């Protein structure tokens, strides 16, 4: 095994699907000036045009767009909250069920396939793509938010945002509840969503020999129709969700990074700074995709991982070390204890929390799942299904518990000690406000801001590879010019929306794609189990 691939070795058996479809058969090969193109017809064209049309629409009629999408997202997350919560529970059960069943012995790529990547490289990539930036912004702010609302005197009232009626005035219980609720949003459920998508894609691509594209998951259900319009729609939706997910995060992220830079270094918050930030992040992402999966994306993910580990270690050592260590186990217990109530889809009395937080989060993770799932799938060949699920479901969940305990736990402790500025600061500044209370704040804040930027780059580069693959009909060897196009396009969309307004509206549009994708993923679970049952198992 090497981290860059090697000679073809026997892979043992796998149940390759019998279909006449040839990867790339619908592709158009053309020369555009000096650059070669190899693009799927019509997915490339439709998704490109739809994206351009949407951008023009939100720029031309920003108020109307904001009104429509500002209505759409809460309407989706509050009407279908039970559906999101129920579906996410199903994904967790399916993932755990497969992990402990004999299906866990199926190996991705064939019974004798060897892993493409070492554990370190693999884990860095899946973690950087999967959670990334959210950990930086929500690590402090979410636990503080749940803790504060749970402590408040009105906890439990209909207008309260506290999870599960809160624990008014009970400091210890409010802390446990706040941490449990945060971990719930960053633990098993999101990773189960990613795991189901990633495992399905890996299985249908590496074992069944179908193109690496979202539509392939549905082959067991729709047969050869997935190569027609059914598949075109699924893939176009995936491109749409991915590009807008990335572009809006890039735009909103630039706003947040700018705020952080102003707080730390006095760099003015202005359109110029934000455009420079987006250009810089896109520039690094471009270098990364041109350098390729191994020399670019993987290396950056590893750098990202080392920096994140450094910051985490710093908080553990310089924060309330003992409280964090005991808190880790305490929070695990609290998570387990509150999990049934938090994940209950029906008859909730804490609607602000279950709809405004949980349902929104689930829609968000699901809208990101085509992108993250496909990226994880691409780098997971050679692992057994059990190994895959332990590494994509359990280990990241435990890392999330540790991360949230360190960042959120420290912040809550500081707030309780009277340093309430953390809770009062703007969302994007809460991390830096907390770091200010710990030693060598200048260095740790600097690492923090670098991490914010690197996390964006690692999402942007892997996302561009994913969009490129989907719009090339599942080919991962399309001309490099195409991935350059997508990475640049994503930056341009972000800049256009940042300057013209409408970022939040499009984020709402992208997260709203979580609803159709939830249906898609539930069907995907059936296809996954069917597909796994047909596979030979390793000894």
């Amino acid at each position, binding site marked *: 095994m090497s981290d860059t691939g090697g000679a*073809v070795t026997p*892979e043992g058996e796998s149940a390759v699907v019998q279909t006449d479809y*040839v990867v790339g058969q619908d592709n158009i090969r053309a020369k555009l000036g000096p650059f070669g193109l190899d693009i799927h017809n019509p997915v490339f064209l439709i998704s490109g045009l739809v994206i351009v049309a949407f951008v023009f629409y939100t720029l031309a009629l920003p108020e109307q767009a904001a009104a429509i999408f500002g209505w759409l997202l809460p309407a989706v997350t509050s009407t279908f909250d039970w559906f999101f919560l129920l579906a996410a529970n199903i994904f967790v059960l399916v993932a755990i069920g497969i992990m402990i069943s004999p299906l866990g012995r199926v190996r991705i790529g064939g019974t004798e396939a060897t892993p493409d990547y070492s554990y370190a490289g693999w884990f860095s990539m899946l973690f950087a793509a999967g959670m990334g930036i959210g950990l930086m912004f929500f690590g402090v702010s979410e636990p503080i938010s749940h803790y504060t609302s749970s402590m408040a005197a009105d906890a439990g009232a209909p207008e309260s945002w506290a999870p599960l009626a809160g624990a008014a005035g009970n400091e210890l219980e409010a802390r446990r509840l706040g941490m449990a609720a945060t971990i719930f949003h960053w633990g098993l459920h999101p990773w189960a969503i990613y795991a189901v998508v990633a495992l399905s894609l890996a299985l249908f691509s*590496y074992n069944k*020999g179908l*193109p690496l594209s979202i539509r392939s998951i549905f082959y067991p259900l729709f047969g050869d129709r997935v190569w027609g319009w059914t598949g075109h729609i699924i893939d176009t939706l995936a491109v749409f969700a991915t590009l807008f997910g990335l572009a809006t995060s890039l735009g909103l992220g630039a706003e947040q990074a700018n705020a952080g830079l102003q707080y730390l270094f006095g760099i003015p918050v202005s359109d110029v700074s934000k455009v420079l930030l987006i250009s810089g992040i896109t520039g690094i992402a471009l270098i990364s995709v041109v350098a*390729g*999966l191994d020399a670019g994306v993987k290396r950056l993910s590893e750098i990202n991982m080392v920096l994140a580990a450094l910051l985490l270690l710093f908080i553990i050592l310089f924060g309330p070390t003992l409280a964090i260590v005991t808190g880790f186990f305490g929070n695990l217990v609290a998570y387990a204890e509150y999990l049934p109530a938090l994940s209950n889809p029906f008859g909730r009395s804490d609607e602000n929390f279950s709809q405004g937080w949980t349902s929104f989060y689930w829609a968000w993770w699901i809208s990101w799942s085509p992108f993250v799932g496909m990226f994880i799938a691409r780098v997971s*060949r050679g692992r057994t299904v059990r190994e895959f699920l332990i590494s994509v479901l359990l280990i990241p969940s435990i890392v999330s518990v540790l991360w949230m305990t360190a960042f959120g736990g420290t912040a809550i402790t500081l707030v309780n000690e009277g340093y309430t500025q953390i809770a009062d600061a703007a969302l994007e500044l809460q991390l830096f406000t907390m770091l200010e209370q710990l030693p060598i704040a200048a260095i740790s804040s600097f690492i923090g801001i670098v991490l914010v930027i690197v996390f964006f780059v690692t999402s942007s580069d892997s996302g561009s590879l994913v969009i490129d693959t989907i719009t090339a009909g599942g080919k991962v*060897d399309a001309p490099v010019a195409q991935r350059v196009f997508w990475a640049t396009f994503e930056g341009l969309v972000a800049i256009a929306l940042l300057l013209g307004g409408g970022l939040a509206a499009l984020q709402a549009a992208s997260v709203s794609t979580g609803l159709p994708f939830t249906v898609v993923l539930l069907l995907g679970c059936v296809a996954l189990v069917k597909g796994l049952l047909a596979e030979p198992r390793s000894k």
Partner: protein
Amino acid sequence: MYKKIMVPVDLAYVDRLEKALASAADLSKSYGLPVCYVGVTTATPSEVARTPQEYARKLDAFAAEEARSRGLNGHEAKAYTSHDPAVDLDEKLLAAIKDVGADLVVMASHIPGLPEHIFASNAGTVAMHADVSVFVVR
């Protein structure tokens, strides 16, 4: 003078390789050299093959057919996988030269144009970095 010829082939574009394949065959016959056909594939399904194994089988068949139709002096085939061949194909081919023990590479290329200033051609890069003789066929 030489011991073994390596011919990188792209099974998706065999029609563009004719001149290079014929040149390699002539060299093989006149020096009595074996030819090793090398292909690089993705582990994900491609237009040529749905698994790396299938790719390797197709490459074997291709090599055997070349040897038969052109009357070569011995042949072999070796398939490699790459995570991202759009980018690291050159690197793979350079490693393959050492791996198969070739001391002459015969390889098709296209006529250099503007894109070469941005993305170097594969044959150009291999010729620049390999420590064996490289015959770039245009």
